[in-house]
């Protein structure tokens, strides 16, 4: 009885013991982050400037904003590969309404709205027809990008209203950009949502066993619909930030971002097959990827090499714990 009372005070796996925390993926990622950080600080004298570090956050906050709901979607055994195209479509919509003379609020709202609409469309197709989301969203990835190209041709839309630039370029206080603060807020929100609410628990339950979840009274399709909508909405938000930061819309805006977003999620420890993962992991992974691209940029590493280094890093970081585990298993067998 006493033992069970003790259990009641350690409510779930997330609040595990020190030993449990020490062996978690998030701890490992944090260590890698610290290591990379120190290496860059030694390699470049410019790295440790607060303004430079603040600039570094622009490398990842827009992607990371989408990675947050994407993590939940992947935990739920679905995925959305159309997010970059969604951003492009939202950006075009904003550019066009801005050309008609719309003010800042209208531009932002239309960006968010188009993103939401794209997400709802994906969710509708997936849940209504039961087609795997990887197929549906590869389709809509082309579809949304195609519509973007059709609407724009070779134009550049850049007549955004004054004040719109704040979202992508403004600072809330000192070195803290609007983007960065927004990302921290969103990360906190999604952390609470995934780890401390019924909605989050249901997300894990669906990821663990969608059939049993349905039998347990979870409205699985509705749940997935909400997550697709959330991903779309955040893609719309990211589009607002990116468009504002660039000050213009081109057809190739955010091209290829869906892969770096999914990379962030996977690097953050979310199982690509669904069922497990955490927001903290995704947030650390976002910081890690951001700091690496920024640091390599400071060291004047060319873009091509940077891509190679990031790819190698992803493989190394993900395989290291597995190799360590194998070594440990081999050693224990020998004893």
């Amino acid at each position, binding site marked *: 009885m006493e033992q069970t009372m003790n259990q009641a005070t350690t*409510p779930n796996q997330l609040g595990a013991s020190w030993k449990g925390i020490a062996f978690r993926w998030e701890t490992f990622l944090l260590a890698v982050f610290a290591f990379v950080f120190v290496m860059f600080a030694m390699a470049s004298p410019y790295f440790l400037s607060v303004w430079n570090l603040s600039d570094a956050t622009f490398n990842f906050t827009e992607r990371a904003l989408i990675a947050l709901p994407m993590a939940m979607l992947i935990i739920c055994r679905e995925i959305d590969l159309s997010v970059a195209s969604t951003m492009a479509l939202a950006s075009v919509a904003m550019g066009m309404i801005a050309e008609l003379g719309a003010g800042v609020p209208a531009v932002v709202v239309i960006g968010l709205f188009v993103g939401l609409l794209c997400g709802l469309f994906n969710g509708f197709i997936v849940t209504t027809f039961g087609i795997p989301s990887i197929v549906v969203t590869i389709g809509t990835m082309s579809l949304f990008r195609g519509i973007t190209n059709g609407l724009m041709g070779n134009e550049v839309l850049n007549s955004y209203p004054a004040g719109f630039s704040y979202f992508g370029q403004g600072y809330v206080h000192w070195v803290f950009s609007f983007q960065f603060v927004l990302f921290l807020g969103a990360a906190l929100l999604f952390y609470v949502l995934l780890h401390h*609410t019924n*909605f989050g628990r249901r997300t*894990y339950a669906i990821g*663990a066993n969608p059939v049993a979840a349905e*039998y347990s*009274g979870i*409205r699985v399709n509705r749940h997935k619909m909400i997550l697709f909508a959330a991903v779309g909405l955040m893609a719309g938000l990211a589009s607002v930030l990116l468009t504002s930061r660039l000050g213009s819309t081109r057809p190739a805006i955010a091209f290829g971002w869906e892969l770096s977003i999914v990379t962030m999620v996977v690097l953050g420890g979310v199982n690509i097959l669904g069922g497990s993962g955490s927001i903290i992991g995704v947030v650390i992974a976002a910081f890690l990827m951001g700091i690496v691209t920024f640091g390599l940029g400071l060291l004047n590493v060319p873009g091509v090499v940077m891509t190679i280094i990031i790819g190698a890093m992803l493989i190394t970081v993900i395989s290291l714990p597995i190799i360590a585990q194998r070594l440990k298993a081999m050693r*224990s067998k020998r004893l």
Partner: protein
Amino acid sequence: MTTDTPLFALRNVSKVFPGVKALDDVQLELYSGQVTALVGENGAGKSTLVKTMTGIYQPEAGDIWFNGEVVSFPNPEAARQMGITAIHQETVLFDELSVAENIFVGSYPTKGWLKSIDWSTMNERARAILAEIEAPLSPTAPLKGLSIGQKHMVAIARALSVKARVVILDEPTAALSHHEIQELYEIIERLKANGTAILFITHKFDEIFAVADRYTVFRDGRYIGAGSIKEVTEPELVEMMVARSVKDTYPKVEAELGDTVFSVKSLSHPTEFDDISFDVRRGEILGLYGLVGAGRTEIMKAIIGLSPKASGQVFLDGQPIDIRSPAEAIHHGIVYVPEERQQQGVMLDLPIYQNISLPQLHRTSKAGFLRPSREYELTQDYAKRLNVKTSNWSEVVNNLSGGNQQKVVIAKWLATDPKVIILDEPTKGIDIGSKAAVHQFMSELVQQGLAVIMVSSELPEVMGMADRIIVMHEGLITQTLLRSEASAEGIVSAATGGQS
């Protein structure tokens, strides 16, 4: 007792998993040319034992003896090298390959410096092995055309291809016809004649007494006893297995019957069932018996809103209700414990307490925020009542035995405080002890005034537990009987479409 030294032995072997000691200081001796039957309930540690013997698991303590020496199996290959082979129900065979390829998979005979497969040698050797076990199979026949029994022979031939010294047969007869079982017995005799030591794992006592020379009993991961099969009787074995004498009676309690709480009127489905009407009263267990494919599960799915094509009416406390999803069914107090425990019932990777609180997070949470302490309380209340065996409610369900998993599923549904509970094959694939616990619990439920609908294809269970029995055949109700009127012959006849 044999005076020889055993060919293979486990001495004081332990294997620990988080929260469970799967093997606790167990002993096992296998003798050359003899069949040893391993007897135990589900969860006794039999599958862990097999995995330890074949190098899939490494024991934390104890020694493995082979041919008078201590050996260790760091991996499955090491056990295979020593000639230890297991034939499971799910032995991995490859449908797209030929019989001979399946027999030699992983160690194809080769020729030349290119190491290309030597087809003629392989087929020749396969033919020899097949002849040895008198299996009428062509080495070049594709596996996918074979029956389950024939595939079994291929699995056995594979075991023999590596000069097996110890053969583990893990419930080999589960999917075999009577004739195929006889053939298996003959193969076992030939293996014995070759001096192979055989471990025979089964639930069927007639098989134990038909083929085994010796027995070993495990219970709850512990070694209980062993000896010659000639010196033991079936009741003695059962008693060793379950630590109490099991009389084949059901803990049926005649609860006081109350008002009709739930009824179904002319429920129909375009293809699965037609014109189904029944009602169930408080304190009543309604048994729904029928063969597989009679439409029982489909009716239950229609009731809880998982079958949009169905039509008909459902009443709760005399009021018509409309259920379009399991969520609405739960809201009305009608819960369904599904047949396929692992696919439909539990989240194997989630902790016990999260499984149990899942259908009613709205009750354990506050304004949408989780309150794990409340979930723990709920789990403690219900999982304890059902006597779920675990050290920790945070243990993932996957680490529990089948019977305990089923208890978690039932606890999950009871915790929703239902009016009507539908149990679909509640004791399918669980051990005797858990079965009794589930039956006992059903009696407690009706005494508390619940209405229970029990779908089952186990005749003794239906006759032992139900107050009223509905018999179905091909989507139609063919008979409704009171407990007192029921006879096994009558029920089977109605279920197979005989008289009505």
